């Protein structure tokens, strides 16, 4: 187990590389969902306004 985390002495490079990549993966999930949620909220607001006008 110790040897696994040590990565043959390359731990200081291997693990940050994995951390950055998975941060980007998770952020992409978060950003994509947030973008969709914002568009849906915006569409709801527009429909609401149309209803009030008519």
């Amino acid at each position, binding site marked *: 187990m110790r040897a*696994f985390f040590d*990565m*043959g*002495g*390359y731990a200081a*490079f*291997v693990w*940050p*590389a*994995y951390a*950055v*990549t*998975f941060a*980007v*993966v998770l*952020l*992409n*999930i978060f*950003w*994509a*969902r947030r*973008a*969709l*949620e*914002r*568009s*849906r909220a*915006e*569409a*709801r607001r*527009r*429909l609401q306004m*149309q209803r009030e006008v008519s």
Partner: protein
Amino acid sequence: MNWTWFHRLASPPHVYALAVRLTPWFAWPAALCIAAGLWGGLVLAPPDYQQGDGFRIIYVHAPSAWMSLMVYVTMAGAAAVGLIWRIKVAHAVAASCAPIGASFTFAALVTGALWGQPMWGTYWEWDPRLTSELVLLFLYLGYMGLRAGIEDPQRADRASAVLAVVGVVNVPIIHYSVTWWNSLHQAPSVMRLGKPAMPLAMLVPLLLMLLGFTLFFVALLLTRLRGEVLARERTASWIREVVRA
């Protein structure tokens, strides 16, 4: 041959419904491939005879770099379709690609720097491969900045599409930079003519990661596409159905 399915891809309500239905079919296989690829790459693959365990950075670096290029080609292709046939959905696809591509280009640059330091003795060098990949990041950021700077969505679509299409010349430059010039960066070991230059125990996890990231891109694209399609439809009545909370 019946081409209705193809023509329906230009119809916003159809595309929205299709995206809802297809997303899980890409997201879950992506998660499985990435999990298996990580296990294979970090645990099962033997250390490299020259780079020891340092080579394992390849399992995040190569998929990120692949994404940076594949997403750009998708974006430019969609932008071209949008420009030529004036299809709104195509512009929505292009706009959805940019933030995904930019973030993975960033990941490719950072993981590359972390690989460069132990193997080449430097985090950064103004090398053809590294420099052209940095230009790719600026192309993505320029595309997003241009879109953000134009108020009218149709003008933003057209102007940014021109930038995306022109910028595609950078893609072959990145890909062939390591063979055209004497670069620090190693030559391709998977995407080359003939056999991959890697034993199977190293290659299979890499292919799983590449496939997993590609499927993940499609799931992200479908999610973002729904938002972009909604934003382009001002008055259509189908919107009422899909946003009813």
